[in-house]
């Protein structure tokens, strides 16, 4: 599979493609999203696994443990978070900091059925937990100029 040679593709003969003027309106309608969508997005499920867990996390007893070697600023510190319940199971992370920097994020507990499915919620949460809003650009589905202008007033646009 060649994927990085976009600028050196060989000339290929054109297939017969008719260009129909009368259907342009339909094409435009599809392009601007005039067709309704009924996908049931569940923002709560997503919020749960992106670090916004205060409202939805399930805690089983007091499970926070902290082990420290040396002082917090110079040694290695690890902390185990509360188990976080989400739609497909429970995950629990252990975060290790050395000299104030996160050096490891380990999965302590996961009862999700599929290994890969368990890994991804953990990993996306770990990456946002250690970076927070410390990023230069915000990627996402192509926003419109109006949306962009609206977002300029919110905190998120200041990051992008």
């Amino acid at each position: 599979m060649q994927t990085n040679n976009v600028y050196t593709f060989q000339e290929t003969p054109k297939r017969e493609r008719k260009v129909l003027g009368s259907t342009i309106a339909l094409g435009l309608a599809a392009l601007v999203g005039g067709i309704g969508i009924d996908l049931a997005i569940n923002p709560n499920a997503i919020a749960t696994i992106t670090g916004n867990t205060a409202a939805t996390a399930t805690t089983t007893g007091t499970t926070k443990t902290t082990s420290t070697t040396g002082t917090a600023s110079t040694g290695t510190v690890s902390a185990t978070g509360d188990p976080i319940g989400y739609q497909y199971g429970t995950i629990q992370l252990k975060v290790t900091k050395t000299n104030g920097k996160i050096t490891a994020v380990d999965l302590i507990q996961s009862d999700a059925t599929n290994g890969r499915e368990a890994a991804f919620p953990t990993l996306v949460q770990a990456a946002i937990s250690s970076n927070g809003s410390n990023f230069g650009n915000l990627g996402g589905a192509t926003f419109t100029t109006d949306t962009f202008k609206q977002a300029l007033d919110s905190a998120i646009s200041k990051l992008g």
Partner: protein
Amino acid sequence: MTEFRRAEECMGTFFVFHGRTALATVELDELLDAACAKLHEADSIFSLYKPESPLSKLSRGETSVAQCPPVVDHVWNLCEDWEKVTGGYFSAFTPQNTFDPSGLVKTWAAQAAIEVLLSAGLTDFTLNAGGDIWLSDGITDDRDWKIGISKPVSIASTEAGVITVVNLKDTDYRALATSGIAERGSHIWNPQTKSPVENELVQVSVVAKDLVTADVWATAAFAEGPRAIDRIAKVPGVEILAIFADGRIDGSEGFAELLRKSAV
């Protein structure tokens, strides 16, 4: 070094250039003007929202590819090639058989704008092409190596936020593109069924070495649905993160590895 940021409105979205340069302000402004001119030139040729653009005339059957600027033929060929590479899941030919290369032109034009800045010697900058992100090789600010990926809701929504952060430093990836329904609803159609995409995915993000590759694969993956995860996992240099409507998250092992690196 001077930090710069330029937001250019084009193609119904914004292109944001951001970086650092030793160039004087006047020189830099001229350079950014030249880069943005590439975007506007592509828009004037390929926009289907401008009734007098060559593409609009082509759609109405008032002209032929041969009579259009040569770049139309070039983009037509690129689209056909990408259609083959993606197993038919990226297509610029609509169910109505009109040629609509919008899915490629934004990042293709962005790449042309990037080349203007690169050829002038800029090495330390990023481009946010309406949500698709490109990074240069010589970024000096660690923040700029990191890209936040939006939750699958509009950036203007009260629920807007970031689902994760990827750090492309010390990787071969220089681009991250995202396809989904968050901003413009269901605007992607499945070339195989010739109908709007209705699947379990609400958003896919793809990392690759260049912007067009990331963009095309993100569009193709969204059109194909969950099976695209395994398809893309086999493509060298391209990795995918997929978000399902019910909140599940899945992706390729390479993207998992990128997240592991991003978390430390």
